[in-house]
């Protein structure tokens, strides 16, 4: 029976963080250097990690513990954007950094790792708890999990958890196959599929906004909501990752995971409790309620896009096909817009428009809920256009929530104009928000899977996306179909216009 800590004070203290070792496969990679180590260092800086904490880096390059520490020191100094570097904090943190070299396909790696973990356990008192983080090529996930299982490292005297980065397969079948292979060594409850969008403060705030207030939920259904727009736009191109991106595309890279998860958070039913199984059940139910499209529906309700060259602010910008490493005939979608319908009583008939793309007019992620117009326009004598109420949840770059409504213009007469009531997350809470990786890493360490994706959600998402993938593959579009720096293809505007709607220009 675990011994209760007599010194805990939940009102004042941050969450309790158990001792553990984090084993990172792909420790020499970009994600480790840019995100994982800076996030772990920040957690140490903020005193969020327990004293018995260690990191074991794994990659093929032979390296001593000391050389690994030096490498990670450089990474932390370079990529910790808003954290002061404190040498003493670093020294204490770095004393818990270890390195094991080896090939993921080689059984010897896992034997060495097992020995090292035992040694670390006795030196650092990590309690036998281990969080494995797969930050490798997706093709290595299954082999790493199997290697851990075969060496007996996937089970131990403490807890064992496995964090997996997206993509979780490239279609429904491969997602199931990956899952089956992970489950050979880890139970589903031990698998943490990370979607960093869910770690963003504002995405979490959607839950607080919806289920922490009584005023909004009655308006959150087909009776009042006309349609919902979800935008995940990037102004940059593929930034040297053309070869990788051409295998993925906007639909798989953004909609299948991030934006469908955001949609699930916006549209899910209230959860009975704020515990992981309950919240994930509701999110999963919502994803399973999205109607998969027939080929004819895909033709009408989706638009693929690819950016062509353009001049932005006097600077010539290449098209996708001109990017380094990209096939000049590439059919990869750098833009995707889809219209989805949720088949449940709350949302029946309400279109959910989702769009994402690279090289769009600006970098913005937001959810816009457009309400039905007032049933009677009694103030229309001045010829003012009707302005529907909008509730906008801004995820990035300015995090917050705005409500747009009409108000009387000062002066005589009854002239209305739209005004915006803004809640700005950054200014209302001046505190620094933790990065998504800080939040999610800490969640995994404490065993809170609320913000992680479960296998049934992955499968439900692929069930929605796969018919679109198939149709687009079988019916190649005329690319490029939008200039860099624009808001996407004209066909995407036409897709909304058919229902009398227009895309918001954030």
């Amino acid at each position, binding site marked *: 029976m675990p011994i209760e800590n007599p*010194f805990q004070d939940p009102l004042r203290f941050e969450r309790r963080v158990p001792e553990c070792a984090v084993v990172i496969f792909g420790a020499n990679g970009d994600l480790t250097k840019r995100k994982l180590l800076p996030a772990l260092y920040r957690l140490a800086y903020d005193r969020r990690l327990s004293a018995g904490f260690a990191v074991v880096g794994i990659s093929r390059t032979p390296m001593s513990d000391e050389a690994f520490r030096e490498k990670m020191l450089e990474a932390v100094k370079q990529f910790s954007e808003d954290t002061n570097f404190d040498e003493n904090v670093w020294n204490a943190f770095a004393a818990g950094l270890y390195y094991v070299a080896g090939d993921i396909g080689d059984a010897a790696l896992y034997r060495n790792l097992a020995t090292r973990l035992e040694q670390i356990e006795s030196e650092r008192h990590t309690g036998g708890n281990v969080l494995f983080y797969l930050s490798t090529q997706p093709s290595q996930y299954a082999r790493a999990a199997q290697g851990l299982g075969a060496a007996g490292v996937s089970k131990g005297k403490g807890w064992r958890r496995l964090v997996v980065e997206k993509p979780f397969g490239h279609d429904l079948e491969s997602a199931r196959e990956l899952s089956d292979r992970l489950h050979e060594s880890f139970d589903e409850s031990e698998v943490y599929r990370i979607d960093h969008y869910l770690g963003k403060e504002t995405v979490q705030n959607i839950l607080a906004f919806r289920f922490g207030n009584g005023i909004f939920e009655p308006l959150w259904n087909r009776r009042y909501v006309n349609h919902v727009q979800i935008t995940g736009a990037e102004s940059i191109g593929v930034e040297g990752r053309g070869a990788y991106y051409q295998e993925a595309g906007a639909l798989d890279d953004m909609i299948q995971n991030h934006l469908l998860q955001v949609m699930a958070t916006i549209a899910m039913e209230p959860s009975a409790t704020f515990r992981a199984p309950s919240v994930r059940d509701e999110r999963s139910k919502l994803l399973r309620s999205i109607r998969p499209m027939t080929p004819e529906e895909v033709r009408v309700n989706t638009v693929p896009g690819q950016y062509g060259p353009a001049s932005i602010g006097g600077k010539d910008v290449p098209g996708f096909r001109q990017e380094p490493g990209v096939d000049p005939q590439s059919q990869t979608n750098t833009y995707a817009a889809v219209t989805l319908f949720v088949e449940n009583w709350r949302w029946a008939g309400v279109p959910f428009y989702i769009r994402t793309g690279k090289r769009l007019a600006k970098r913005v992620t937001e959810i816009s809920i457009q309400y039905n117009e007032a049933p009677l326009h009694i103030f229309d004598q001045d010829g003012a256009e009707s302005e529907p109420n909008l509730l906008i949840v801004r995820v990035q770059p300015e995090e917050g929530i705005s409500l747009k409504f009409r108000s009387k213009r000062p002066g005589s007469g009854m002239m209305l104009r739209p005004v915006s009531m803004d809640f700005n997350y950054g200014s209302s809470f001046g505190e620094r928000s933790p990065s998504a990786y800080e939040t999610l890493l800490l969640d995994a360490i404490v065993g809170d899977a609320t913000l992680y994706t479960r296998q049934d959600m992955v499968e439900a998402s692929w069930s929605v996306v796969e018919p679109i993938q198939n149709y687009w593959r079988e019916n190649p579009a005329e690319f490029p179909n939008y200039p860099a720096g624009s808001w996407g293809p004209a066909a995407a505007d036409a897709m909304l216009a058919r229902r009398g709607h227009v895309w918001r220009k954030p």
Partner: protein
Amino acid sequence: MGTTVAPEKILKELSDLWVDSGKQGQAEGGAGVLRACSMTLLVLAEAGEDTQDLGETIAALMPEHPARAILVRLSGAGDRSLAERVYSQCWMPFGQRRQICCEQVEITASDAALADLQSVVLPLTVADLPLIVWCRSLRLFAMPEFREFAQMAHKVVIDSASAPDAVALLERAHHEVERGIMLGDLSWTILTRWREMLAQVFENHQNAAHVARLAQIDVEWGGSRYVPALYLGAWIRDSLAAAGVNAKLQISRAADDEHLDVQLTGEGIAVKLAREDGRMVVTLNGASQCTNLPQPTDYMLMREELGIVRHDPVFERTLASAVQLAHPIQQ
């Protein structure tokens, strides 16, 4: 100095302030100003306090705890007099176009006018939001007039460490808590990171297994750290007692100024927490580890207190024990 202050006039001035700020913001090509408010913060300070320093602390709190701040400056003995001024505190969040502004009202009052002050402050509080009283004047805290402010407040915050007679102040604070006042003491807040670090040590299963063997608690203090030392000792002793562990507590004075450290010892375990050069050093069985722990400022401490507008049972229990520790004869 005037002799009267009309709340309605202040409210009108506040309203005009927003109209002016809005016009100014739009004229400068910005997106106007955004008014933010999550509470009324009533700061009671002596007129002799550094105005700029206090103003900066209040301003620093605003982005995280936007409030209508009412600063009452106590001018001491003399004729009955009250005076006020109204201004706004604005800031532009990084990378954004819109200014965020909070209201500030400054009222100067002589002791003779204290009785009138409540009737001025009450209409100025923002409806439906909590009123937090930060009583920096321990002289006022000890006066009967303070009771009126405490009754209005959702929470009262003091700093007992700065009191000339800390024990008397703790007794008074304990008395207020017993009357149902929600109280915060910055001398307790200062210990949050210490307590958290100690708790973290015992998150480790091996260390947790030694809790029952802890037999001795030694707290050393210097300078103005007497109250934090009492709190820390009382809290550790009570926490262990709640777990069925009776450890002996020793609180002693160190030669160094502003010194505070604590050591817990028992068979097979020795834990020491000490501050060294802006860092917390935790030594467990001879092995040390340090983390960032900047010198706490009023801003940092108030930031934490303003985030807790509810009874803090751990603090209230510890306050009662600290009063007993300070007066062992009463036990």
